[in-house]
């Protein structure tokens, strides 16, 4: 069964597609819209998007597997992405990663059994001025240390 887009997402997709001279060109933003709705891009979603944009599912899969910001597995309600690149690592990201892993009880790339958290290591988040930093869903948190991480996570429902 292919997933049904909500009316709201359908409207958003129609608006995105209208912006481009070719339907195919709307692929990246349409995938983002789909991910906003379902949390990840399944094979079924790939096929729906392919049908919508009149391209082959293989082409959609190429794009989904190339870009790391499309989730190919379901993620928890909170997607914690911590930077492991140079600036953050120099300022102690390594121990923060260990701390997060221990606190959430999962390894990077995994989701907690209650589906609350997914924990990912990412490359640069583009916020070296507040290194070490992480994102929880679309929100940035910088200048992190262990107590700050505990405070952020403990305040999440």
């Amino acid at each position, binding site marked *: 069964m292919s997933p049904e887009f909500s009316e709201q997402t359908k409207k958003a997709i129609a608006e995105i597609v209208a912006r481009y001279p070719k339907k195919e060109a709307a692929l990246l933003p349409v995938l983002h819209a789909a991910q906003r709705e379902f949390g990840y891009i399944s094979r079924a979603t790939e096929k729906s998007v392919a049908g919508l944009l009149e*391209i*082959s*599912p*293989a082409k959609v899969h190429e794009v989904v597997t*190339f870009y790391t910001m499309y989730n190919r597995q379901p993620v928890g309600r909170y997607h914690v992405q911590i930077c492991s690149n140079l600036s953050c690592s120099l300022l102690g990201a390594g121990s923060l990663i260990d701390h997060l892993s221990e606190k959430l009880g999962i390894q990077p790339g995994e989701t907690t059994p209650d589906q609350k958290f997914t924990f990912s290591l990412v490359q640069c988040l583009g916020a070296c001025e507040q290194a070490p930093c992480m994102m929880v869903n679309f929100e940035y948190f910088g200048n992190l240390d262990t107590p700050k991480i505990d405070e952020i996570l403990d305040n999440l429902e």
Partner: protein
Amino acid sequence: MVKIYINDREIEVKEGTTVFHAALDAGIPIPHFCYHPAFAPEGTCRMCLVEVEGMPKLELACSLQIREGMKIFTQNERVREARRGVLEFLLAEHPLDCPICDQAGDCKLQDYYEEYGLFDSRFSEVKDKRGKKIRLGKYLLHDQERCVLCRRCVRFLREVTGTGEMGVFERGGHTKVDTYEEGQQVDNNYSGNLAQLCPVGAITDTDFRFQTRSWFLEAGESICPLCSRGCRITIQAHRGFARFKLPKRVYRIKAVDDPLVNGPWICDKGRYGYSYLDENRATRILKKGESSPDWQEAIDWLSASILRLKHRNRLERVSVVLSSRLSNEELFLAKKLFKDDLGVGRVFFADAPPEEGDDMLLTPDRVPNTRGARELGWEDVPVDMEALNRETDLLLMFGPDFENAHSLSDILGCFEQIETTVLLTPFDGSLSSQVDLLLPTTPVAEKAGSLTNIDGVLRNFQPALPALGHSRAEWSLLIDLGKALDLRFQYYSRLSSPEAVFQEMTGEIPFFEKNVE
């Protein structure tokens, strides 16, 4: 025209062309994996890098358009070093299983390493394992480890067949070409083009797997006779070894680019259906079931049979069954001989029944020259069994298709009423032992001549293979028969080759005159 310099040589080229084509036209091939003339330049393989004076970085020859005065260097040390670098990365993940790879000998990766590489590997890392021997289709195997990621296969399936089964997935060192669904099959009638497109051994033919090595094969150009498209092909055959008998001659067929006919592609029927060239062939003259190697005797016997009827004024009791497998020249000679000179009673056509075509190349006709027969003025008259039964003393049949159009018992029933039955065919069939005279002839692959395709495009062909056994081309038999009948000896003596016959045709039939190649 624009003046450019390649390796300090002044060259005039057409405006708008690319460096790649300008160099190729000047006889300077540029190494490449991803570029293929059937597709827009892709620029992914980085093998075609060249140096252009005034440009800081090396440029892609496949996509760079030439400009007036451009100075291009295709072989200097900087360019060679870049190519060596590209090869080093490609080979970092390559299995180097050339000794068991069917592409060995035809492989661009092998050739370029020979020309630009020749380095010792600096990689101490273990190579990634990827999919091998993946069944990709009825005729195809896929080896992901040998792939150089040129995307030719992906582009073919998107741009030519529009089926889009494959893609390039993941990124960086993990990038691989794969089908979208696991185990998905490419099952269209053009799948074999993937194996021909693949510049390395990543997609190979199953029928060719471990059969022979490509360097033993000799390629001869011909025309595919399996439908009326008449695609240009090369037939790759093994000459055999002195002490070791091979089971067959033909090991594979590949497409040859002909823009007006087939472009760079052929269908799977034409590519993989070559067994007819070696199997069930009629190779010996059989007179009343007795084998005889003497062509002159056979032709004299046939002409004597015809002349006997002529002297009894019974030429209207001669029936001829022609075939649209015959070349233009042969159908023309048949017209001269049977219609104009002898005035035989009846001429029929027996062809393989039409089958479903497709919207690319394959046509419903399963014989190559239906259009040529029409242009020569032949009508497609199906065999009238009643006429054979009652009004025929001598029956001359061309081609293998008559016996499939009627039941064998009906045909043998007719044969009982006919004094003399003669069959000229390249293939052994159920009639071979039933006729009074069997003359083995050659398929298109073993003779010279021309065919007219469904769109009226005329193409010449030369023998790609030697004639098998005692078989001979129909055009030469018709000329010999014409001479033996002694009706117009001078005329038939003059027509000593398909070219001479074609000359004669162009003078007589305007269609062939305007179509001279």
